[in-house]
């Protein structure tokens, strides 16, 4: 029973190669199923096969078939504790391009739930999911935004708290602006207006987000009606002037300017109750939070190492489990046989008492040897202890008989 991992990831394989071996969930599940007791984890950054009792050459060949070329230089192969540690780091987001990203944990869960793993894979994947959750709850590694669009959403939440019901105006149809709007919407904000030079494009986005389309000329008249403005046009001139912002507002107005050249008048930042972040500010926030993620990653690595040690102990304890089971079975057999000898000479009450007393004696006698064998297993003496127990109690001879 050996846990093996064969795979390639963004650390060693270029995107041209990764995209050839990337599989969607049904295809990944089918590939794993065709190999035997295996789980295939395939994302845009990695394709990895975890298996037990499968010929390694078959797994390598399956991946090479997908790649259409030999993968000698890029495939990594890990076994047992090393494979488990790798999976734990993957689930914790520590092996990701952006440390601590949360999507990978869901992908590990999907791969696990789609497969029908044996006992070893089941155990290691369940533990990996637990490690992923533990790292996210006990460290702040996943709390900070890792992209400009998510930073925009997080900053808006820093101003307004819960974004549910907050109204957003999206100016322009730039890709990053659209992503920022999507991030705000995912936090509960309502995309109220989409303004664009080409009104048809505005209508198209408005249809997707559920807001109203506007011409650029109508922006100023609607600024009093929104809480967040996200701008990402390619206009060479300023789209919103400080004078366009309504002077009397009871709630803050948060401006996100992702355009280069900038769309929003920098004087807006000086207005009372207005906050203005441009692309450089957002990138600085992302860089800062990523450095925070790296320091949290060190704490996460400690948690992962603890869990890997727990897995190693569990694996080691498996060496002595058969010996412990045989010992207990042998003792129970003797107890039952001795009880049978006096069966007809006791009342039902006496029989029950004797059964209870002998069972307690047996448990107390075997408790310490069981604990000691498990401890020895963890410190790598397990096999020797197990052999000694088999020899002392004649368990092998018993089996032969």
């Amino acid at each position, binding site marked *: 029973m050996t846990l093996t991992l064969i795979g390639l990831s963004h650390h060693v394989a270029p995107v041209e190669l990764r995209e050839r071996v990337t599989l969607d969930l049904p295809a990944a599940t089918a590939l794993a199923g065709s190999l035997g007791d295996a789980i295939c984890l395939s994302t845009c950054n990695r394709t990895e096969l975890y298996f037990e009792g499968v010929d390694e050459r078959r797994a390598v060949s399956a991946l090479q078939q997908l790649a259409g070329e030999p993968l000698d230089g890029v495939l990594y192969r890990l076994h047992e504790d090393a494979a488990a540690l790798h999976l734990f780091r993957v689930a914790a987001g520590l092996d990701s391009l952006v440390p601590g990203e949360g999507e990978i944990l869901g992908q590990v869960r999907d791969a696990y739930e789609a497969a029908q793993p044996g006992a070893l894979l089941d155990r290691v994947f369940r533990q990996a999911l637990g490690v992923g959750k533990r790292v996210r709850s006990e460290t702040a590694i996943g709390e900070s935004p890792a992209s400009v669009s998510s930073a925009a959403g997080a900053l808006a939440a820093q101003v307004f*708290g*819960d974004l549910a019901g907050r109204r957003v105006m999206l100016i322009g149809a730039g890709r990053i602006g659209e992503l920022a709007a999507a991030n705000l919407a995912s936090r509960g904000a309502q995309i109220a207006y989409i303004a664009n030079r080409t009104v048809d494009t505005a209508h198209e986005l408005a249809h997707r987000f559920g807001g109203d389309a506007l011409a650029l000329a109508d922006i100023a008249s609607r600024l009093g009606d929104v809480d967040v403005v996200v701008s990402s046009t390619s206009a060479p001139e300023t789209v919103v002037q400080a004078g366009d912002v309504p002077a009397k507002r009871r709630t803050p107005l948060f401006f996100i300017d992702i355009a280069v050249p900038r769309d929003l008048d920098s004087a807006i930042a000086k207005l009372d109750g207005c906050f203005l972040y441009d692309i450089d500010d957002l990138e600085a926030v992302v860089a800062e939070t990523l450095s925070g993620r790296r320091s949290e990653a060190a704490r996460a690595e400690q948690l992962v190492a603890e869990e890997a040690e727990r897995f190693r102990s569990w694996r080691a304890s498996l060496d002595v489990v058969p010996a412990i089971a045989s010992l207990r079975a042998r003792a129970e057999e003797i107890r039952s046989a001795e009880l049978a000898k006096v069966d007809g000479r006791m009342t039902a009450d006496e029989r029950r008492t004797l059964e209870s007393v002998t069972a307690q004696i047996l448990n107390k006698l075997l408790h310490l040897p069981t604990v000691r064998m498990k401890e020895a297993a963890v410190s790598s003496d397990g096999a020797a202890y197990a052999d000694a127990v088999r020899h002392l109690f004649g368990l092998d001879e018993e089996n032969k008989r």
Partner: protein
Amino acid sequence: MVEVFFWPALLGYGEAALAYATVRTSRAATWGVPLGWLAQTALLTAQAVRSDGFPWSTWAGSLNLFVWFVVGAYLIWGCRPRFRLLGLSVMPLAVALFVVARIGGGTGAGGSSHYGNLFLILHVGLALAAFAGFTLAAGLAGLYLWVERRLKRRSADILRLRLPPLASLERLTWRTILVSLPLLTLALVIGIVRQQRDGGRFDALEAVTLLTWLVYGAFLVFRPTGRRAAYFALGGFVLVIVARLALAGSHFT
């Protein structure tokens, strides 16, 4: 015997004041605050049991009770890791005032006043509870201004600091004053009724407290927002400091 509860309370508050210094240790602070507060509750209970009358009518005694109200209000509103900076301002203040209360003899047994118990419990208790609420509101307003300034300046570390949102701080400041002002109103009414009945001069403390009531009343009526609301709350707190620290000693003598 009574003072045996002083040390665990001080230890809890002190632990919280230190633990709030860093983000990593701030979780531990959220334990020190309730444990310290429970110990101080035991101290106050022991004082009440041992005393013939109202045990907190002295300047130092009322400071002891005031600390209990401040920490109690903080426990209700802000004792969370995300409000670390609020804790960092409230808990060292609580420690300092608590120590001053002990030096002044306000944490021992035996103190009492010739004033009627019920009057003092209501008048002093309500006024101190209101002042404690205004203190917490000032802490929230100060934190609002600090966060707002960092957002205005576009500080790159704004998200790393894991600060409470501006809207939450503004809402909590408003709610704290909304709860505290009726308590002060009741305290004033009880004090005025008593003064009308027994006679006595209108002193400086009453004048400043009345002014405080007017400032916070205006806050609730006009409901300022943003920075203005924070300045309003801090302005009212200056009057609380004057009432609490500069004038309180003369009121019951």
